[in-house]
């Protein structure tokens, strides 16, 4: 009996070690421990063994059974491992690059715009939008730009033919001409006409000037304007906004200053300079960054908000100019060429 068991163990050891597939394993399992298996047959012989030998033999058979089971478990593990290995294939070279192009990128102008909108949102400004095709009223008249002002001239502003008709750009007067807006201030007028203050909007968008394209000029570019109209809005509030915007954008040691200036739709009006460390390619202490002022009473009264009750401020700047300052870009045309070597730098 003992010799039979030993032989069985040895054979099982040798057979199971060679097993690689599930059918082989199933067959081996049946051969050993199945109802007609060899080990089962030996166990069945227990009854014919003298009684006093039974405990020792029982122990011995259990040992053999445990050993065979362990061998089967190990074989199963090898089969499963083998199956997975076949499924996943040989090891790959993880140092090879992905062939997929990407990742996608947002245009730097979008990134700068969104960063400004996030900064402004924190102090209650929401984004307003308006048409790029505008009329003389929204772009000029309502903003206190006299009819003979040079900015309105066909030399500086793109106009559409007199007979152009837009189904979804409303005119204020029937005889107005359509034009391409020269600033996003037209959005301020459309917003002011929608309802009473308080109003606190930021209007980023595309604007057009009839200008030679060169390193700093482009036929279309982007502006971002803020408008706040409420009771008792003051010059000091305006300065506080500018300080807030640029310290948020460029760090605590950033300073802004106002220089008196002239714009038709604000009074008083200022140009805004900023001074910041670590701006690339800037070698002046102060850089002009935008224009601002207190909304002229004429503008407020013109859109039906009593300037004795309401006051407000407006601030505007060029997004390309800001992006050029932030990133150290020296040619505005790069924004419009979309060379991927450019776009990927701002991911």
């Amino acid at each position: 009996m003992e010799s039979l068991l030993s032989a069985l163990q040895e054979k099982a050891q040798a057979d199971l070690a060679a097993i690689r597939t599930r059918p082989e394993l199933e067959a081996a399992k049946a051969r050993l421990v199945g109802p007609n298996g060899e080990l089962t047959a030996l166990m069945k012989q227990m009854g014919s063994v003298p009684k006093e030998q039974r405990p020792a033999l029982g122990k011995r058979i259990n040992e053999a059974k445990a050993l065979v089971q362990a061998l089967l478990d190990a074989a199963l593990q090898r089969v499963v491992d083998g199956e997975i290995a076949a499924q996943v294939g040989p090891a790959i070279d993880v140092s090879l690059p992905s062939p997929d192009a990407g990742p996608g990128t947002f245009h730097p102008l979008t990134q700068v715009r969104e960063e400004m909108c996030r900064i402004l949102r924190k102090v209650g400004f929401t984004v307003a939008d308006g048409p790029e095709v505008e009329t003389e009223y929204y772009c000029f008249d309502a903003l206190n730009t006299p009819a003979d002002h040079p900015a309105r001239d066909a030399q500086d502003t793109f106009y559409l033919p007199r007979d152009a008709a837009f189904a979804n750009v409303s005119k204020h007067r029937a005889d107005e001409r359509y034009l391409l807006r020269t600033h996003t201030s037209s959005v301020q007028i459309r917003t002011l006409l929608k309802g009473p203050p308080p109003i606190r909007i930021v209007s980023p968008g595309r604007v057009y000037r009839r200008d030679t394209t060169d390193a700093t000029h482009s036929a279309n570019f982007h502006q971002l304007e803020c408008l706040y109209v409420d009771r008792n809005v003051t010059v000091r509030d305006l300065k506080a906004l500018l300080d807030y915007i640029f310290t948020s954008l460029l760090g605590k040691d950033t300073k802004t200053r106002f220089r008196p200036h002239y714009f038709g739709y604000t009074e008083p009006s200022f140009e805004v300079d900023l001074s910041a460390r670590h701006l690339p390619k800037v070698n002046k202490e102060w850089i002009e960054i935008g224009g601002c002022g207190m909304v002229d009473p004429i503008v407020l009264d013109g859109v039906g908000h009593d300037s004795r009750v309401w006051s407000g401020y407006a601030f505007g700047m060029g997004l390309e100019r800001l992006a050029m300052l932030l990133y150290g870009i020296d040619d505005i045309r790069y924004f419009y060429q979309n060379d991927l070597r450019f776009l990927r730098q701002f991911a």
Partner: protein
Amino acid sequence: MKVSRNWLQSYVNLAGRSSDEISRAITFLGFEVESVHTTGAPALSSVFVGEVLTRDRHPNADKLSVCTVDVGPAHGVKTIVCGAQNYKVGDRVPVALPGAVLPGDFVIKQSKIRGHASDGMMCSGRELGVGEDHSGLLVLSDRPELGRPINEVLPAGDVVFDIEITPNRPDCLSHLGIARELAAWFREPLRYPSVPDEGALFAGAPARPDLLGSVRVDAAEDCPLYQATIITGVRVGPSPAWLQERLTAVGLRPINNVVDVGNFVMLEYGQPLHAFDARKLGGAEIVVRRAAAGESLVTLDTKERALSAETLVIADQQRPVVIAGIMGGSNSGVDESTTDLVLEAAYFRRQGIRATSRRLGLASDSSYRYERGVDPHSLAEASRRAVALILETAGGKVAGPAYRVGGDKPWLREIVVTPAYINERLGFTIPSSDMRSALESLELRIVREDRAEDGGERWTVRVPSWRDDLDRPIDLVEEVLRIFGTERIPATTVTGPGLAEDDDPVVEYQRRALRFLVGQDCHECVNYTLRSATEVAGTASESLAPRLALANPFVEDQSHLRPTLIDGLVETLRLNRARGVSVTRLAEAGRVFRERDGQLLECVAVSFVLAEDPDSRTWLRRSAPDFYAARHLIEAVASFAGLDLARQIRPVAEGDRSWQSGHAASAGDLAHGWSASFGLLNVASLKTRDVTGRVYAGEFVILPANLAAPATRSRYRPFALFPAALRDVALVVEETVPAADVRKAMTKAARAAVGTAFALESMEIFDVYRGEGLPAGHKSLAFSLVFRAEDRTLTDEEVNRVFTAVQDALVSGHGYTLRK
């Protein structure tokens, strides 16, 4: 405008103020300083007049000389090594002695040059900072006294500020105007030039109607005020040095004393003036009128100008002699032979001058000032100033009569303001005494003081005639703040309640769509809105293309509004490939312009292109993009606007120029506010634009107003946890039958068969087959149907019953064949 520091000094004391300080003042008064230019000699110490006594060749250098130079009794004779060649023994030259500091922080020391001691340096003009000449020593003319400090010999220096004057401040297109601002800033008094009054000027003047018998203004609308003064017996010649110096400092060429005085007073007061040779005025008459058709005039720049009925001219009895306010004619100008002259001081309306200047393409210092607006109430004073200066520099006598045609209403403008209002608008407090001095320093006189309703101070402020830009209390807020200093606005924090508003839906939509596309590995692009006529004609319909044209394009390739973003993206593709940059996925969001019922529409568009990269050389090949990749993206982009494209997709028409028919589709219609196109871009059209290979694209266009609908909140629907029953069916249909039709029929049949007993949970097309075993011109579409009940496990019988009914309905109702 160029402003000379020396000239300003005549009106305001700037002694001891550095150029930087003055620049800063001008800047914070509200004018941009474009450049600061120093002329003449800077202050130089230890530089004296010396005379070359001997000149010998340097023993060790051919090009150098060793000179002895007499620098006067105080300094004695020095030995100086010099490299210049342009001087001779006996010349007097500037000598910088050890200790002198020349411009550029060049310190002069005792030194050895090529082994020979040198006790200083003889200087060129450039070394002294008095000019650009560096060809040799500055040899001094007139043999100035030896040892004199060089600044006593060289012309005094000046600083010229080039200032940009904002359009609201024409009064500052003059030295007096800028001086007034600086006087206010530095709290210095303003000194006006002394000008004789009219009585003194005309006292004892003889009447000379033979020189000028009448002045008539036929166009009073364009010329509300015209003044002419006769001066006889002048001697035209070069201006005195001081006058020449003033004009050259600001870039004007001196011509003769009469013309120079005119220019000087224009730059002093801002009032343009014009002098005629009285003897050249035909008929001794001046007429201010519109030109007649066919008239022309040769202007002082010797060009012949054709005049029109809109052109305002000054004429004599026969012919125009001046284009009013812009430029004089060569037929009546003052020259060396002039003895009697007429000095014109006039006020012309700005609009007329501007229109004529533009029409003729002719601008001058005079027209520039008239266009910006001159002060008619300062005109008489400027005129008297000029007359007095002509008498002083050219001699002569004033003759009568004094002509003054038109006349203005007297100027009186007052603004009532309270210091409280100013502080309220500013948001901080400026003491009223500071406000008062700020206003007074700008000659804004407080002429009346009383109490406002709240008991606070109230001022009536009189505005001077040259400040036409001030007429409301808010305007005075700016004046006070300018003089107080915008740099002193105190800091504070941003306050203000939240407004509980959302960002505009258009902005939100574009953000969401772009975020998705960038997440799909697209690079966001920004292209120009204005496109070429050719490009637009290649994409837009024949009716739309011409309507997109601008009335006044600036350059040919940017003449039309874009009807699509895809052309820009294709251009981006081309440019990158041409530069050898691999590019496959691009996206853009922006405005495009379309039409509906004969009217244009401004629309929001979101577009993308998916290109295979023909030059791609990656170690692992990916499958190329296809129609269904584009469809996936466009459906997502439309879904962000709350739209389900699937039901509306139709193939593009045969012959479409933008899209490849048979491989592209569209959905929606702008008549309903939106439309979408997607699929393969027309391969032939792309080729003409130098883009090869297959490019898939998609464009979703929607009216901004259609994005305004508020989002509806989703409602939870319970979903069954019992097992589903699956059935597959394959249908053989004609090749031309769209899958969507079969699917629709199947859905209908399944719904009818299921009724309310349970549900057809989903249905997917899992195989499309053509070829062996099917009749020619047919395809097989295999559908997988999933049935499920909410409340139980479905039995085979009930599912089979429904499934059989569905198959029967498809075969009998639609003529499809079941594929076994």
